[in-house]
């Protein structure tokens, strides 16, 4: 449904936002693009939605080339943008109607679909209010409803829950997760919330500095770090501690450092054995053993940039 080949974007001034990426998204699949700010996720969505012109490479949506046939590609897709993209002086219903009309939905069909999405997304009491009076979460739900009115074959969600409070975020995630039952809908979602990606996505690509550095199902990505790892809190020179662990053969190249925490995949070694070796070195104030999470995969591949940004 989505095919991306050697896609590249260099902005005027020479900033290489996307440096040649390839991926496919199958029909009905929910595909996540993960990465820290500046990794190239939004630029990728911009190129797929034809609001950013690719410098090189190709991208197709349902067989439609976004550069050669942008109108048809746009007709097949809808977007929920990262920031508010609404007219505050129009009602929610008018937003949905406007989208339906621009995407060529017949008036009678549009009315029915608006009623359907309004009910499905719990917008019944809001829909005839001016959007300027909506809360952040309400506005997000409206934007999602708007994107669904045209029954797109491809839905782009660009950081859909960013800036929302935890309760509203979870409510919205429930709604987005509910979209998975729509077999005709292929979804590409960008996020830097890893729990969100793990919950929603069938497959993930992790982007870093404009490149895809890992791609697979959440389970496949976690398998890269084995079944168990150690997390060491270092009180002192953490890079030096990691170097010592590597020198002693306790940590390998896949061990990584974020702030004062060193994470060491066990790669089949018994945790008790490695914990004992670490204990002898007296480097860590605490050591815990746990299975790897998507956060570990992400932090290892992106060099902890998210943690630094936060």
């Amino acid at each position: 449904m989505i095919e991306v080949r050697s896609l590249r974007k260099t902005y005027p001034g020479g900033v290489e936002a996307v440096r040649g990426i390839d991926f496919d998204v199958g029909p009905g699949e929910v595909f996540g693009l993960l990465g820290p700010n500046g990794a190239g996720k939004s630029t990728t969505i911009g190129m797929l939605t034809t609001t950013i012109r690719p410098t090189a490479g190709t991208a197709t949506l349902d067989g439609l080339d976004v550069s050669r046939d942008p109108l048809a590609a746009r007709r097949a897709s809808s977007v929920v943008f990262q920031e508010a993209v609404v007219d505050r002086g129009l009602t929610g219903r008018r937003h949905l109607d406007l989208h339906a009309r621009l995407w060529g939905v017949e008036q009678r069909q549009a009315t029915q679909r608006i009623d359907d999405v309004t009910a499905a997304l719990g917008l019944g009491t809001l829909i005839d209010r001016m959007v300027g009076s909506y809360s952040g979460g309400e506005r997000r739900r409206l934007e999602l409803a708007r994107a669904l009115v045209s029954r797109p074959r491809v839905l782009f969600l660009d950081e859909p829950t960013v800036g929302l409070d935890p309760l509203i975020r979870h409510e919205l995630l429930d709604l987005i997760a509910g979209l998975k039952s729509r077999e005709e809908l292929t979804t590409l979602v960008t996020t830097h919330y890893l729990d969100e990606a793990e919950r929603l996505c069938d497959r993930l690509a992790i982007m870093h500095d404009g490149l895809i550095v890992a791609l697979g199902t959440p389970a496949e990505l976690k398998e890269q770090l084995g079944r168990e790892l150690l997390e060491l809190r270092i009180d002192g020179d953490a890079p030096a501690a990691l170097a010592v662990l590597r020198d002693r053969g306790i940590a390998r190249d896949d061990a990584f450092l974020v702030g004062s925490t060193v994470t060491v995949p066990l790669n089949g070694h018994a945790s008790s054995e490695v914990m004992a070796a670490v204990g002898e070195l007296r480097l860590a104030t605490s050591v815990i053993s746990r299975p790897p999470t998507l956060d570990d995969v992400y932090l290892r591949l992106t060099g902890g940039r998210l943690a630094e940004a936060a």
Partner: protein
Amino acid sequence: MLTATLNPLMVLSRRRFQLTVRTPRELLVPLVTPLLFALVIAPALKTALHTDTSYEAFVAIGTVGLLVPLNTMFSGLSVIVDREQGAQRELLAAPVPRSLLVLANLLVALAITGLQVAVLIAAAAARGIHFDASTGGVLWFLGATSLLGVGMYGLAEILAAKVPKQEEYIARVPAVAIVPWFLAGSLFPISAMPTALTWVAKFLPLTHALAVMRYGLLGDAAGLHNIWGSVDPAGAAALSLTVTAFFAVALTIASVRIFTRSAVR
């Protein structure tokens, strides 16, 4: 094909109209200054300078040359609002040619400008200012006013595409909408200015539009004579209308291109 273009154009125009009427300031503010000129300042000047009643009519038409640029420039402001706080990105992701976004805004700007010009002329007539208009004359007037509106809106779109912030845009409005008005024979004939400025005025589309408007609504060909010399009035009006049309077409094409390029990075 035509329906496929007209339907989204109407949908986009309706959106722009609904947003515009929700901000009455956009409708009223551009009207205030021209009304003041037509109804208060012109009669006061007539009395002070001991001119005859035709001067009031001369200035009334001259204020149309202020109203059209002011209103179209205000309409251009909404493009920045759309981009900064509105739904422009959703519209850019819609399966419609992006030129329609500009043309839809243009249609609404023209409709509102037309309404305001009608209010201005009606108010001037109610104040006792006499217009000597035949059907043909009204057509000359409407042609010049519409083409001036189209060209000025194109300029507003270009400015809105180039200027990132509303306050920067507003700071440029006087240079675009008001300075040419003083030079274009709005309050006095261009022949009353120093020769160099008269030549500058001859190159302003507003000068041509105002001369055609006065020819149409007052039967006054003096403005056309000041531009073209001893060409017959109808021929001179056609020439000035052509200049205004060229201005309108060129600015519209440029505005569509610049909008499309600036909207897609």
